[in-house]
């Protein structure tokens, strides 16, 4: 019997949304995360839904400020102080229970038990992911001992094993080193070892390849692929780099200003992009073709987050803008193929308006 658990008490009456987790490991439904400040409210994530199955690799892509990182912080409930989940559900299938992460106490026992154990995260900057005054091993062992009842020695052995698995050259020595003693590539590996130390079911990688040069980036992707094949966890890959998405992920969701604009398999989205924004993103990637090919940037700039456009958020920059429609109404998600959905009036949704 699947139960939804809220704040420690099981609720037998299941809402309609809990139906059909469908074997999904994580199901984010209509997530809304807003930031409150003196200047106003920023709707960083404004109604995003997606599912991820065990062992699947999902990419979330978009420009900076589109809400992709906030989405990942919402899942683990590690938002900055002024960020709040104001709506939606984040359903996580934990053994035989479904837990709504969105309504749990952010620093309560339920979430603390999931963090680092079932859902782990890799961050952008490996240098600052570790405390500068504690050794790499100290922090890995700490994580292991929070989630497993093992002795210090056993945790130590597990930590060394994990460091070896991520390809650290000398795990027995590296475990006692500080991050400032490690090279950039080693730090990345140490960080991966840290997040994988309890073999999570879901790994969220938030721009793990952004702060490193291309050779380390390539190593990182290879490492993630190896580890994924090895441990079989699901991965959410968050990046603005479409190359990374193409190389690593099964499915991709494109976001713009806190909204999902298109999702589908990598094959669909890259070869048959539908949304004008997706097409724009793909056209703005420099090509390796011989000869000079002009790259086509998307017209205009990302709007001020405090003054969001009405209707479709992309209408101010859209080459296919339909006057009288796009600036008045929010486009619904429309399926263009099996598993390939777009939120754009070019593909339907206008009938419902009349």
């Amino acid at each position, binding site marked *: 019997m699947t139960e939804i658990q809220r704040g420690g008490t099981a609720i037998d009456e299941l809402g309609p949304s809990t139906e059909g987790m469908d074997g999904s490991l994580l199901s984010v439904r209509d997530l809304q995360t807003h930031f409150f400040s003196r200047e106003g409210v920023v709707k960083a994530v404004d109604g995003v839904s997606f599912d991820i199955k065990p062992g699947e690799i999902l990419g979330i892509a978009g420009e900076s400020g589109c809400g992709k990182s906030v989405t990942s912080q919402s899942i683990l409930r590690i938002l900055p102080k002024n960020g709040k989940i104001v709506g939606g559900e984040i359903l996580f299938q934990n053994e035989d229970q479904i837990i709504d992460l969105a309504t749990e106490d952010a620093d309560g026992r339920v979430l603390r038990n999931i963090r680092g154990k079932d859902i*782990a995260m890799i961050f952008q900057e490996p240098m*600052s992911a570790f*405390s500068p005054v*504690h050794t790499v091993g100290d922090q890995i062992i700490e*994580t292991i001992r929070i989630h497993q009842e093992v002795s210090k020695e056993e945790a130590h052995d597990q930590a060394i094993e994990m460091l070896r698995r991520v390809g650290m050259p000398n795990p027995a020595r590296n475990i006692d080193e500080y991050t400032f003693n490690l090279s950039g590539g080693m730090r990345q590996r140490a960080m991966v070892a840290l997040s994988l130390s309890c073999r999570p079911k879901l790994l969220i990688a938030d721009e793990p390849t952004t702060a490193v040069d291309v050779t380390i980036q390539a190593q990182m992707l290879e490492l993630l692929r190896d580890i994924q094949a090895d441990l079989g966890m699901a991965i959410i890959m968050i990046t603005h780099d479409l190359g990374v998405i193409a190389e690593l992920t099964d499915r991709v969701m494109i976001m713009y200003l806190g909204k999902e604009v298109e999702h589908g398999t990598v094959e669909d989205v890259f070869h048959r992009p539908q949304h004008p924004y997706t097409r724009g993103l793909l056209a703005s990637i420099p090509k390796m073709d011989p000869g000079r090919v002009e790259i086509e940037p998307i017209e205009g700039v990302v709007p001020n987050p405090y003054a969001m456009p009405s209707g479709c958020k992309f209408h101010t920059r859209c080459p296919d803008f339909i006057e009288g429609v796009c600036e008045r109404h929010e486009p619904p998600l429309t399926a263009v193929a099996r598993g390939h959905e777009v939120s754009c009036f070019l593909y339907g949704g206008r009938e419902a308006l009349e």
Partner: protein
Amino acid sequence: MLIYILRRLLVMIPVTILISIIGFIIIQAPPGDFVSSYIAGLEAQGDIIEPELIDSLRARYGLGEPIYVQYFKWVSSFIEGDLGYSMIYREPVVDIIAQRLPSSFTISLLSLILVFVIGIPIGILSATKQYSLADYSFTVVGFLGVATPNFLLALVGLWLLFKWTGTVAIGLYSPEMQNAPFGLAKFIDLVGHIWLPALIVGTAGTAELIRTMRANLLDELPKQYVTVARARGVKPTKLLYKYPLRIAINPVISTVGWLLPVLVEGEVLVSLVLGLPTIAPVLLDSLMQQDMFLATSIIMILGILTLVGTLLSDILLAIVDPRIRGAV
């Protein structure tokens, strides 16, 4: 690390010599010497001084000789532990310092403990509950504490205590206990007196420490390693004290050694106002009356303590911060 400490100790030798030379020159710099100000004092009282007495005094203290001869005489006896003779107190300098050191040290140490015990937790509270009522209140109190001179606080404290309880909180002991041998009764008397000076001497330091802790911790709290630790399932309390606090407290550790000379000296103005038998008022007296052995000795001791304190702080910092340890 050992080599580093040895190197630092070696560097301290020339610096100490430099301090002694500068100290000596500055004390000698004003025109006249102790004998002339002593005579001026006697004459002001209407005494007539015979020239033979003046000469014998000068000869006794070696005041007629060139300054470098005086310096070497003083240095060689200083190294042997003979700090000379105080002309105003008519006692060996060693005895004066020995009498005053315990009370200087007790008051300063107590106020230091108060500074840390009050300052650090309030600083942490202010940072973790930033912009709360408590934070604003402590910020106001903190600024007042930094801005109000301690001697003024001492005066206000004396007045308030007199107004409310009728006691005059001057000195460390009640008059009747002043010359009693140290025992339980005297200790209780001391406890009753010492808290006011300790609190007042510590006020500015506490206020400053609150500000420092708050600022340091606010710098560390949003750092990514804290978020990462949170994302690993670390408990909120551990999230505070194991990680950001460890780093935020480093600047405090790196300056703690500088307090060594302060511990010995005590604070001048508060000591004067509250009539405390610390070393600071003696230093002031000796400087004003050109009591050269006393003044130079105290300055030398404070100088050496400053050097030792700085070294201690650096060693402490290297112990707590591996980044420093790697660099030395």
